[in-house]
């Protein structure tokens, strides 16, 4: 979108990754997304110092108190402080994103590199397996996995991670297929390098851009899916202050206490927005096809 800024002078002989970082830091969407994320990460680390109340402490006398002096963002139906619960929720949300994405990334890297590099019958058979996973709408795949494993926050993270697996495998596979026909890969094979050496030393470093973009853009999807699972009671269980779980039962207080509905949802939206902003900026910078 902003071609003028990215064309600004960058010293010659700057390595490509540094060049990309400089272009990235000049993009407004990357700046805003990055800044919000930084705040969220700091909030998660310093949650005990920021929270004004114990996020689990019930106070029935002060239930459904509107936002004000005692409760910055009001209190819920058990009299718990919504602000403190949201603050502690950042920890859970970041953890969900991190674990779900790591599951997809690790398994996706292993199989994606392997099928993309080996090709042939292995690829043909294995990709039919991936086709089967793709035959389920992503959220329903996660739902089916939770159905088997049982409702809990950990299982929700695993389920969301596996739900994102097909896209990880396919992206890494096609990047590998593109990289493996490059001269440097063939030269290395000609010198007798082992398959694992070729994959780790030559192919992996050259497919980092699509992986970085995908990882950043999978975070918001994982956070949204896990929040949805918690909202329908299949993820984080009460009294965990997970953001989706904070909205369970909120429907009943829509008229009387709109703050119970408003703020946890807003927290999810801002976090997801930050990841999306950063991810889009990364895609603009790192993906030569878009640039």
């Amino acid at each position, binding site marked *: 979108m902003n071609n003028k800024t990215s064309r600004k002078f960058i010293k010659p002989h700057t390595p490509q990754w540094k060049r990309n970082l400089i272009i990235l830091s000049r993009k407004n969407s990357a700046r805003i997304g990055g800044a919000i994320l930084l705040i969220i990460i700091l909030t998660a680390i310093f949650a005990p110092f920021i929270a004004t109340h114990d996020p689990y402490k019930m106070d029935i006398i002060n239930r459904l108190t509107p936002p004000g002096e005692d409760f910055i963002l009001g209190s819920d139906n058990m009299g718990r402080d919504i602000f403190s619960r949201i603050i502690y929720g950042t920890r859970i949300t970041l953890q969900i994103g991190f674990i779900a994405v790591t599951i997809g990334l690790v398994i996706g890297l292993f199989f994606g590199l392997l099928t993309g590099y080996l090709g042939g019958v292995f690829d043909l058979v294995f990709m039919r397996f991936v086709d*089967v996973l793709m035959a389920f709408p992503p959220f329903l795949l996660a739902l089916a996995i939770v159905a*088997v494993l049982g409702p809990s926050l950990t299982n929700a993270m695993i389920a969301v991670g596996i739900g994102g697996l097909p896209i990880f495998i396919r992206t890494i596979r096609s990047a590998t297929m593109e990289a493996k026909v490059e001269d440097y890969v063939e030269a290395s094979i000609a010198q007798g390098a082992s398959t694992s050496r070729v994959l780790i030393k030559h192919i992996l470093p050259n497919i980092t851009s699509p992986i970085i973009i995908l990882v950043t853009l999978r975070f918001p999807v994982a956070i949204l899916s896990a929040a949805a699972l918690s909202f329908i009671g299949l993820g984080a269980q009460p009294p965990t202050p997970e953001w989706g779980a904070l*909205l369970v039962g909120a429907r009943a207080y*829509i008229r009387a206490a709109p703050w119970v*509905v408003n703020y946890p949802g807003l927290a999810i939206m801002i976090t997801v927005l930050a990841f999306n902003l950063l991810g889009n900026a990364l895609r603009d910078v790192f993906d030569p096809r878009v640039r």
Partner: protein
Amino acid sequence: MVEYISKRILFLIPVLIGITIFVFLMRVFVPGDPVDIMLFGQPSTPEIRENLRQQLGLNEPIIVQYGIFMRGVFRGDLGNSLRSRQPVTVEIADHFPNTIRLTLASLSLAIIIGIFTGVLSAIYKDSWVDVLSMLISLIGISMPAFWLGLLLIMNVGVRVPWIPVMGSGTWRHLILPAFTLGLIASAIIARMTRSCMLDVLQKEYIRTARAKGLAEKRIIYKHALRNALIPVVTIVGMQFGYLLGGAFIIEIVFNYTGIGVQAINAIMWRDFPMIQGITLVVAFTFVMVNLAVDLLYSLLNPQIRYD
């Protein structure tokens, strides 16, 4: 063309078989004894348990069990719900149409709003119209659907008396849930339409059309939009799946009687025949929709390579 279609259908067979294996394995991988789940809360003796195991074929080797499962699938018999004791197929047939109705209504809304916004943004690129609609669509993509649903209940449902905020049955009950899902999906379609449109507007044939002196309206609707919509068609299939998944949650928000509410109750109650049946039907539906979209795509786009 015929070859492409038959190939596409042929490739479907292993996927369909794969789905049945996945769904069958769901029960195998459940921790705990299925007999315990089925007899939950009922007095049982070892004889009753053994009889039940025999009846369900649980003593047979896995491969035979899969055979029994597949025989059921072909006969349209997916067992009985453990909760309602009704055949699973009957339960699904009762509720699935409602969910499909919601999915299609939201998909139509998403397509109309999404394409309209996307085209407008592309034509007036970098104007306030573009900036505003892309900002809104970014927010739309980042919003949890169930939260938007709650916000709509709070702000629209409560104020407009003729729009019901819960239940199902009439077209009015569809309004809020369909808008919830449709608005969010339209954000994705709008962004896609915009970038395809901008892509096409740079093509030489558009310049030719301009050079010929065609009216701008004609260029945009006759030449640009038609070509820009071809890639948009491909994501409609994906969107169907996304909306179908989203419908499961939105049904809960609006207390809308569909397969989503049933599925979530089934998971809570560990009603496995029901869970398996729903998973199977939804996956088959999604596969068929994607097939239809692919075929439509190949019809619309003569440039496609059939290999």
